[in-house]
């Protein structure tokens, strides 16, 4: 309930509680008119008002004293202080008791210097001097260490100190699933959490670790919806040879989990194995979807009886909107006999993923369908009937057991492909590109005719090529795109893929043609609009490109990349306000995306707002520390303030990190520039030479690239190689003599050879094309102009 609603409930409750029945009824009707759920909430609270006599009338110590009497053993129970305030491992100051698990107590501790919290587990006092418990405590930690999984609370260390053993664990800042169970979950939210739980348990079971106390209170949710399964305290590792939990030594480890979530075989004290966790997880899943526990009864005995005897009430009574396949999965998890239960958490995980695929598929299809129906109602009526029959066929008639045992290669391939596709959408992280390549490769091993997977593989290679100079990747991309087209020549993705490769080869007309073919097969393909926009942009077709970007955004408004590309489009034209708007949208859609922050900083940088620029560049580096260009620009921002000492280490770092990226010569060139103006000519010249080599390598893959020629011209100029500099400059300006940036760089070259007249002309043209005065002022290369002709220089800077 949100705070405003709660305020309202309270106000009405307090108004109603003192009234007699008649007055109360009319009061409630007046206050809650038109809001039945408000009335229901107040009624519900009022109905408890007269039942709670005595509740919280005594204080807690009174209650405890009545329950347990005068407690002569209280000294053993309220253990004095000996732990809070203790320093563990010279580092962690124990600050707070968090909770008690099966064998031990868990405390929060804070790192003395860094202030970061950890959780520390210690053996409960009654076990502390028993060697067998102590050994088991250590063993448990040792098993749990095997579990390096993002959804399992991690063990950091085991520390022995003053004869005691402490386990140092990751501190989870979040809520338990229990506190979130006040309302049923929607299918999307449920699947998100359920998949992470199943994934955690699958990892545990792979290590032969059974949790045995799965319940909502042991499932933590962090602020970012990440699941952390905790308290493997009851958990034990099954003997490597035995199959069950009841062999010899395990027998006396029988131990209490939480009865309301226990599997029937555990309650009855029978043999159990990892399938007990499946049942417990099934109860949790049921509770999440139904909003209530499937077996809850008036007391614990009745509850456990129901777990053993009764089937859960059909979940469709509580939640009508569940996919059939999910309902079947719940039934399969909650089977009483382990042999009839779904066989492993890996199977559960796979089923959940299939449910998610189908759920997303149906939703998207439905959206696309309703959109089309508006256009062509009659044709669709027939198609809809076929679709409904087909979907009903797969979902209603496919027995779960068949799918589980004979899960087709194709279905697995689809899953791998989907995962890869999701990763590729966040291609701003280079590691995602690599991971997606791996997933597509695996999907293609299962199904070598999978056209979509080939197309996405091609895209992934293209993106990798953009991050490196490896021309071979472009060839791999091309092969993948061609394969895709071979297996499905009408597939939009295949042509998008071919367009991307053509674009990267500088063949913009070919690229545009491929994207147009793609749009013919799928007019809704935002990727085709996006690619076409870029190809048109490269051909200088401003309005057409803009139109395509707008279409890409219209078709899929929530994909960050369209906004980001569109922003770059404006940015290149120095339409900074429009660019910033797009980048801001992109960063809201993709908040961990360092590249977008980098993009946001750059227009500020080019406006001479160095402080704001530095802020964004630093944010970019915080999200993606390896983001070379952000570091590079951060260095440049310092450089343009002419604080070379601050700039040089950053630029140096940028050079080290940029090794192998497409335009790594830019970083080398920048560092060379900083050395040059700080007075270190020797290092400067060496680096300029290196930068020229790198830029030439890039030119090989992409002959005629004006940026490369421009850079080479400048570097040669700084090395006083006049002939070479002028040759490259001429090529660079061919067709780009209306580009402010190129003209400005050209001016640097002219100044270097004391051609001040030409330099002035070049800059004057650049100014008329929009070059900002601050740039001229900030660049040390252009200082010589001020000396040569102060009047003309001032005029150049004057606003027009």
């Amino acid at each position, binding site marked *: *309930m949100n*705070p405003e609603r709660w305020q309202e409930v*309270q106000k009405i*409750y*307090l108004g109603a509680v003192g009234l007699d029945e008649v007055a109360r009824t009319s009061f409630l009707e007046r206050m809650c008119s038109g809001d039945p759920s408000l009335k229901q909430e107040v009624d*519900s*609270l009022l109905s*408890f*008002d007269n039942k*709670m006599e*005595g*509740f*919280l009338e*005594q*204080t*807690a*110590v*009174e*209650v*405890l*004293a*009545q*329950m*347990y009497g*005068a407690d002569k053993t*209280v*000294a053993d*129970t*309220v253990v*004095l202080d000996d732990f*809070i*305030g203790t320093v563990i491992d010279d580092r962690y*100051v124990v*600050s*707070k008791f968090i*909770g*008690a698990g099966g064998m031990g107590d868990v405390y929060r501790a804070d790192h003395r210097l860094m202030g970061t919290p950890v959780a520390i587990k210690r053996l*409960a006092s*009654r*076990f502390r001097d028993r060697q067998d418990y102590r050994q088991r405590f250590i063993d448990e930690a040792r098993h749990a260490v095997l579990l390096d999984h993002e959804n399992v609370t991690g063990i950091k260390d085991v520390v022995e100190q003053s004869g005691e053993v402490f386990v140092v664990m990751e501190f989870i800042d979040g809520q338990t699933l*229990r*506190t979130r*169970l*006040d309302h049923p979950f929607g299918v999307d939210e449920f699947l998100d959490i359920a998949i992470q739980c199943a994934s955690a348990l699958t990892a545990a079971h792979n290590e032969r670790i059974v949790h045995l106390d799965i319940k909502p*209170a042991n499932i933590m949710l962090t602020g970012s919806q990440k699941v952390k399964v905790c308290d493997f305290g009851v958990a034990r590792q099954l003997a490597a040879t035995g199959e069950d939990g009841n062999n010899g030594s395990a027998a*006396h480890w*029988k*131990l*209490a989990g*939480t*009865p*309301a979530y226990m599997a029937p075989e555990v*309650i009855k*004290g029978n043999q159990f194995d990892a399938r007990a966790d499946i049942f417990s997880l099934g109860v949790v899943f049921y509770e999440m979807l139904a909003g209530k*526990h499937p077996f*809850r009864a008036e*007391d*614990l*005995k009745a509850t*456990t009886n129901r777990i053993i005897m009764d089937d859960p009430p059909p979940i469709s009574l509580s939640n009508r909107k569940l996919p059939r396949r999910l309902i079947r999965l719940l039934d399969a998890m909650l089977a009483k006999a382990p042999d009839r239960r779904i066989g492993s958490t890996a199977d559960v995980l796979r089923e959940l993923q299939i449910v998610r695929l189908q759920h997303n598929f149906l939703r998207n299809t439905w959206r696309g369908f309703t959109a089309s129906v508006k256009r062509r109602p009659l044709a669709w009526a027939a198609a809809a009937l076929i679709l409904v029959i087909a979907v009903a066929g797969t979902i209603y008639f496919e027995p779960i057991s068949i799918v589980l045992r004979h899960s087709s290669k194709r279905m697995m391939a689809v899953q791998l492909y989907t995962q890869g596709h999701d990763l590729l959408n966040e291609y701003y992280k280079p590691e995602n590109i690599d991971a997606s390549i791996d997933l597509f490769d695996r999907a293609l091993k299962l199904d070598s005719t999978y056209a979509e997977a080939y197309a996405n593989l091609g895209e992934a290679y293209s993106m990798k090529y953009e991050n490196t100079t490896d021309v071979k990747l472009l060839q791999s991309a091309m092969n993948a795109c061609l394969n895709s087209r071979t297996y499905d020549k009408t597939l939009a993705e295949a042509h998008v893929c071919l367009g991307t490769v053509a674009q990267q080869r500088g063949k913009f007309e070919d690229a545009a043609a491929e994207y147009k073919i793609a749009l013919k097969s799928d007019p809704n393909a935002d990727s085709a609009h996006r690619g076409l926009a870029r190809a048109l942009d490269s051909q200088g077709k401003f309005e057409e490109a803009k139109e395509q970007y707008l279409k890409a955004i219209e078709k899929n408004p929530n994909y960050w990349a369209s906004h980001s590309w569109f922003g770059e489009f404006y940015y290149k034209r120095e339409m900074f306000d429009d660019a910033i708007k797009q980048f801001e949208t992109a960063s809201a859609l993709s908040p961990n995306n360092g590249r977008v922050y980098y993009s946001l900083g750059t227009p500020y940088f080019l406006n001479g707002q160095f402080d704001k620029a530095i802020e964004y560049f630093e944010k970019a580096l915080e999200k993606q520390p390896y983001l070379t260009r952000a570091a590079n620009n951060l260095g440049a921002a310092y450089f343009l303030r002419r604080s070379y000492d601050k700039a040089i280490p950053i630029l140096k770092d940028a050079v080290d990190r940029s090794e192998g990226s497409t335009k790594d010569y830019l970083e080398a060139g920048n560092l060379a520039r900083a050395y040059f103006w700080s007075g270190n000519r020797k290092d400067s010249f060496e680096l300029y030479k290196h930068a020229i080599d790198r830029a030439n390598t890039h030119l090989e893959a992409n002959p005629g690239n004006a940026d490369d020629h421009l850079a080479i011209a400048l570097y040669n100029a700084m090395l006083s190689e006049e002939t070479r500099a002028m040759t490259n400059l001429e090529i660079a300006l061919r067709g780009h003599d209306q580009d402010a940036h190129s003209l400005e760089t050209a001016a640097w070259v002219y100044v270097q050879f004391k051609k001040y007249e030409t330099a002035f002309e070049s800059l004057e043209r650049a100014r008329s094309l929009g070059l900002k005065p601050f740039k001229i002022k900030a660049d040390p290369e252009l200082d010589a102009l001020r000396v040569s002709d102060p009047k003309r220089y001032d005029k150049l800077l004057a606003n027009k």
Partner: protein
Amino acid sequence: MAESSDDITKLLRAWRDGDEGALHLLTPLVYRELQRTARRYLAREQHADSWQSTVLVNEAFLRLVDCQKVDWQDRVHFFRLAAKKMREILVDYARKKRLQKMGGGALQLVPLEEAPQVQSRQENHVDLILLNSALDQLEAMDPRKTQIVEMRFFAGLTIEEIAETLGLGVSTIHNELRLAKVWLFRAIQEGKIDES
């Protein structure tokens, strides 16, 4: 580490003035004293009216600080901290007692007949562990009510003392407490709360 009442008074003041580091040092000391106080109360033979004045945190406060040197503001801060800590101590105690009752805790399946929820529903005995979880939920929505329940139920402050400590009117505290109680009671009765 500071031990004398003089030091504690200083820490309390430093915390009041916004020094979070002082709180780190102060908390274990307060906690320790509260545990001592709780122990004394829990070990005491029960007499008909001996629980009337169970103002636990008051007692701890008097023991810990130098009363000549503290002012009303220090007391307010102390009570806020102490009520929360007292809740931790008593809930912890309840948990451990229950474990003892379950047969030393670890090595046997809980005999279901003795399970805690069954017993705790008798005679309006509050299950402190369930109450604790319910309070966590209430806190997410309405932290002030949780604080008032902590002060009243766990720390044993009177309504008037709570009103004074929080700077609110007595009738406000009455209303807040009434709403908190009915909300918590319903949450526990409807069984939506699980011990955490």
